[in-house]
């Protein structure tokens, strides 16, 4: 039985688990980021922009 380099193997294990959750968390977020943006967003922005030029 080899002692792990760090003080405690359970600490390593905990870190590993946290890293794994972190990977998944980013994946979850990135999944939404990579969705195509609904047209509605750009339409709304365009309308706001037109309103501005109309008012000017």
């Amino acid at each position, binding site marked *: 039985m080899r002692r792990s380099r760090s003080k405690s193997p359970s600490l390593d294990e905990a870190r590993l688990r946290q890293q794994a*959750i972190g990977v998944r968390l980013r994946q979850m977020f990135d999944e*939404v980021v990579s969705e195509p943006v609904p047209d509605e*967003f*750009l339409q709304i*922005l365009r309308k706001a*922009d037109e309103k501005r030029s109309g008012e000017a």
Partner: protein
Amino acid sequence: MAAARSEHTDPKRDEAFRRELVGLIPHLRAFARTLCGDPTAADDLAQDAMLKAWDARQSFEMGTNMKAWTFMILRNQFYSEKRRSWRQSQLDQEAAERTLVAVDDPEAPVALDELRQGLGMLPIEQREALILVGAGGFAYEEAAAICDCAVGTVKSRVSRARRALQGILESGQYRRDGSAAGEAMASILAHAERLSQAK
């Protein structure tokens, strides 16, 4: 809001602002979804935030962190709506638990659903801190500015969120379809291992 907009608008600056804002929409949507859960409510929130940012563009200093700025607007919007009808958040929570399961990713692993649900079980301050730092790519300092709190507060929220989330995943508190406790954690670990081997 018909703010007095007598100041001269610079079309070139507006265009640069608009382009950067459009590039941030996917991130605003993702952040909104983690706050609201329900995708439709989240998109409404993201649209409101986008419009608010556009209306306030004169006050934004070009070249500074627009992502953090828009996230702050979105977050403020979220909390002011929540204050208006705090009961809604309860409903959102329930909606989140129903809809987050229905991700349209054909190979969405069970663990991802459970991670979403676990996230939904965290107190909102912990959830947003963890998302900003753990997924949004913000530094603690930036997250503190977005959440309008001290850096130390963000740090402690993130670490409490991490511990709580791990606890939830390991104990299987979500119990969605009777899957064994800890299964989600095992799957998450296996996924991380596959990723590191693929490198």
